[in-house]
């Protein structure tokens, strides 16, 4: 248990997120109403996804330099777990959109960009599955993964800021952190992001260890 302190921290942060997230003070806004609390649950999904895809890219670069299969295992596990968070982010965003924008999905740059990013990462996993040789699989998928990360950043972070987007933080719309994210919300939002990212790292570590054990089975 000596290396588990951050897992306990993760649990505490998320328990705090759920209590303060439901019962804390939030600014009253038309249309948004209480759904403003989704900020503590929907947005950290994407932060965690981008963080994990970042980890995946770093380990892909490390793999290209070292040819150490453990680096490849971490890169692949991080992409996998990041994808789970991305899908959760899409689903929660869709529900939120239904009750504030009035539709499950709109042809918004941000939304479509996120959907395409998810498909790009699904393609990464398919690519991995289609190469037999372990070292070749690692090299080919590592190169693809670096491009995938750059594409994801362009699609999710850059494009929606160039074009007009309905999503907060893009186009002509103010982000939550300009004036909607008030002080009370920051006290919950930042711990929430930290908690969700730690949860992502935790699941990533479990997946990596399973992959390592699997590789030792002849």
């Amino acid at each position: 248990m000596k290396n588990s302190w951050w897992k306990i921290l993760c649990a505490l942060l998320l328990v705090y997120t759920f209590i303060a997230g439901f019962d804390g003070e939030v600014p009253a806004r038309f249309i948004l109403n209480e759904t403003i609390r989704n900020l503590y649950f929907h947005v950290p999904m994407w932060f965690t996804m981008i963080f994990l895809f970042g980890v995946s890219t770093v380990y892909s670069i490390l793999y290209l330099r070292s040819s150490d299969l453990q680096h490849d295992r971490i890169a692949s596990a991080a992409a996998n777990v990041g994808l789970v968070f991305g899908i959760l982010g899409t689903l929660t965003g869709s529900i939120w959109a239904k009750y504030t924008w009035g539709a499950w999905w709109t042809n918004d740059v941000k939304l479509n960009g996120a959907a395409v990013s998810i498909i790009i990462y699904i393609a990464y996993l398919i690519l991995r599955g289609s190469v037999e040789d372990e070292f070749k699989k690692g090299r080919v998928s590592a190169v693809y993964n670096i491009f995938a990360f750059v594409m994801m950043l362009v699609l999710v972070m850059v494009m929606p800021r160039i074009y007009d987007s309905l999503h907060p933080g893009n186009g002509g719309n103010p982000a939550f952190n300009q004036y909607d994210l008030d002080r009370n919300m920051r006290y919950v939002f930042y711990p929430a992001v930290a908690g969700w990212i730690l949860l992502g790292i935790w699941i990533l570590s479990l997946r990596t260890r399973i992959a390592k054990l699997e590789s030792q089975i002849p």
Partner: protein
Amino acid sequence: MKAFFFLLLNVLISGLYAGDNDPDMADALRADGKIWVVIIVALLILVGLFLYLFMLERRLRKLEKDKKGS
């Protein structure tokens, strides 16, 4: 039953008199104290998931130890 009608009445009244200048927040729900039911349910799910993660952790650690021993 009485509490339910009181809540219903509360919601109806707040709907009538809220006016157009106040955004609707879950005041009635919170006044009745029942937001805690939701928090407890969500926390139960969260705690359940964490217990499950720690269990997975234990099983994995055991496997890793067996692997090293063999």
